[in-house]
């Protein structure tokens, strides 16, 4: 026992990587389980044309306990008056709402509702008071977006929380800025427009719709073009590089020295 403690001290990097791997595996497992439950829910709903009234019913059944029967907000959840359909689409279709469990912040997971159901709830919320609408196809069209401009705007406005490569980062007291890989264009757009949770709002006067499309194009460029240098080690920067060189670089070379100096039989 005591022997092990001593080794922990000396092999710190190894230990942290072990924990890291364990943590990632655990996180992956949890999200898979949650995802399965959620998708079972979603598939049981019939995909038909739904109206704002259906949206209201869905809202009363699933959201009103925290956001209030008239979406006016309660101590458990903020008011949704004026948040707009864009906010509903983002929160519901990234699976952040309804909250899986209370914690520092809502986490992305498999959505609990179908797109139609979400749209219906969005219509209901939008009818309460005007707010940002779900972006149209033209707005999200990145065919002639400027990737370089998107990168620059992203670095100035987004990278401090989400990391330059969109790998995510820590905020205060357990909150975090999520990883931005493989996110639907509409959801990126809606997040900027509505400022979900602690993310600031980036209205069209701050980042214009064209610039928002540029950012989406940049993020999708990163998704589609893996690092030219090979595996990117999570794009976490020097920390993962340092762990890698200690564990696999120097570890591998130490293994070689053992082979090199072992007596042949």
């Amino acid at each position, binding site marked *: 026992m005591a022997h092990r403690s001593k080794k922990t001290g000396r092999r710190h990097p190894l230990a942290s990587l072990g924990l890291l791997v364990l943590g990632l595996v655990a996180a992956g497992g949890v999200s898979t389980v949650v995802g399965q439950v959620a998708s079972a829910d979603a598939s049981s709903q019939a995909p038909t044309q739904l109206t704002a009234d259906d949206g209201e019913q869905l809202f009363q059944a699933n959201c009103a306990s925290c956001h209030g029967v008239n979406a006016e907000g309660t101590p458990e959840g903020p008011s949704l008056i004026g948040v707009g359909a864009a906010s509903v689409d983002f929160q519901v279709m990234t699976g952040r709402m309804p909250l899986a469990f209370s914690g520092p912040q809502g986490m992305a997971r498999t959505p609990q509702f179908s797109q139609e159901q979400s749209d219906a709830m969005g219509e209901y919320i939008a009818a309460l008071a005007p707010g940002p609408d779900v972006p149209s196809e033209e707005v999200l069209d990145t065919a002639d977006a400027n990737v370089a401009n998107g990168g620059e705007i992203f670095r100035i406005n987004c990278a401090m929380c989400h990391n330059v490569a969109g790998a995510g980062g820590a905020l205060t007291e357990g909150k*975090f800025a999520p990883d931005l890989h493989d996110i639907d264009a509409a959801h990126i757009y809606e997040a900027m427009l509505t400022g979900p949770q602690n993310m600031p709002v980036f209205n069209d006067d701050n980042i214009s719709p064209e610039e928002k499309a540029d950012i989406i194009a940049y993020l999708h460029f990163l998704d589609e073009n893996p690092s030219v240098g090979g595996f990117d080690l999570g794009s976490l920067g020097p920390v993962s590089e340092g762990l890698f060189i200690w564990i696999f670089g120097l570890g591998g070379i130490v293994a070689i020295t053992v082979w090199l100096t072992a007596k042949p039989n």
Partner: protein
Amino acid sequence: MTTTQSPNAAPASQAPQQRKTVTSWAANYLDERTSISGVTAYLGRKIFPDHWSFMLGEVALYSFVVILLSGTFLTFFFDPSMGHTTYEGSYVPLKGIEMSIAYASSLDISFDIRGGLLMRQVHHWAALLFVASIGLHMLRVFFTGAFRKPRELNWVIGFLLFILAMAEGFTGYSLPDDLLSGNGLAIINGMVKAIPLVGGWISYLLFGGMFPGVDVIPRLFVLHIMLLPAILIVLLGMHMVLLVLNKHTQFAGPGKTNENVVGVPIMPVFAAKAGGFFFLVFGVIMAIAATFTINPIWNYGPYDPSPVSAGTQPDWYIGFADGALRLAPGWETELFGLTFSWNILIPMAVLGLFIVLVMFYPFIEAWVTQDKREHHLADRPRNAPTRTAIGAAGVVFYAVMWAGASSDLIATHFHLNVFQVTWVLQALIFLGPIIAFWVTKRVALGLQKKDREILLHGFESGRIVRRPGGEYIEVHQGLDEYESWKLKAFESPEPAKVRPDERGRITTGTHVRAALSRWFFEDRIEPVTKAEVERASHH
């Protein structure tokens, strides 16, 4: 020994008439102009002990050679100017962006020059490996006591090499002038400014005026490719010369004593192994560089004082300093109209003290033990429990600071609160080394006890035998004399007693030293004696 000789006339004393080959002609040609045969005769059959942990310094040396080779390639293409340009290279997400020439040329190396990215990655991976292998090498030297007389000076030189390697690393990390390295320089600027009296001036002169200015990259470039490598190579040479003069340490073993060195001769076995090992180290670095990205500068974008990336960290070897800054308390005093930034000065002082202690450790230990003998036998760490415990405490101290530099990543990856991570690490920086010291010492003493048991009663063979009386026992197997020697051959000093000096006085210094000596040597396991072994063998 003949001084003048025509090249054709072979000396009569050379018994077998040698065949005239190109090699012999060349050797003769060289020797007549350099007397190189003397060097060969002196070094050629020198003995080098064989143990895996003795190869770690070589890893450092070889990665340095790789750094020199790849770095030379990079200098042919890199332009360290901070002048402005607009990028028109092939990486689309930066096309048309304003940037410095240094950053643009780093991008060109990465995207437009065949093998350029490979050389950049080789250079950076090799640099990380260089510092890591120096660190591991130093740990080996420390924990085996290989820094003791006559090698204290070589420890100091090695330590300076470690510092230089970090300086090389930091200056190199800054050269591409990307966002990450620029923020690193901003942090350095902030730290420098906090130095009382001269801080502002140092910052002002370093950056040629206001940070970031247009001067710092070319200045760091000169340091990185000329001044620092020159000093590094000189010290490296001294390190090697002292290594040859002092000969390598070896672990105690049958036939191995403090007065000899047992191993393989340089020619040919060691040369083949070490030469082959160079290619292996180079090959491993090359394989990593071919398959794993390091420092993707194209993601970071050009340096701009306004943006910053989440997870802004220095390379691993500067991490401990960054961690110290993160863990420091937010203290600052305004006194007589002057500002004292304790939040920066305290971590700088603590790091300085830590570094000085590491550098002078051989002298401190020698003062405590008053051991003036030469030591050529490497200690097994368990046989020097206090030193091993000190080392473990130091490693934990360093590791906590290092973890501090990754507090945000620890928080995001384990879904923790970054504030709480910081508080835990702040507590650990004080408690961790104490716990590590205590635990390590117990473990070392426990292992010594186990050695003693094995010497007296052999090890458990796993074979269960039924005695005629019906009782079952496990057969203990004794060691042969060669194996048991490895466990027996160590020194176990007892603490010094307070004794009066020549004039019959006992000074305070003597008391302090005796107290330290007690602290260093008090907890010990009595070594096995001949009588005990004999008694045990009669059982």
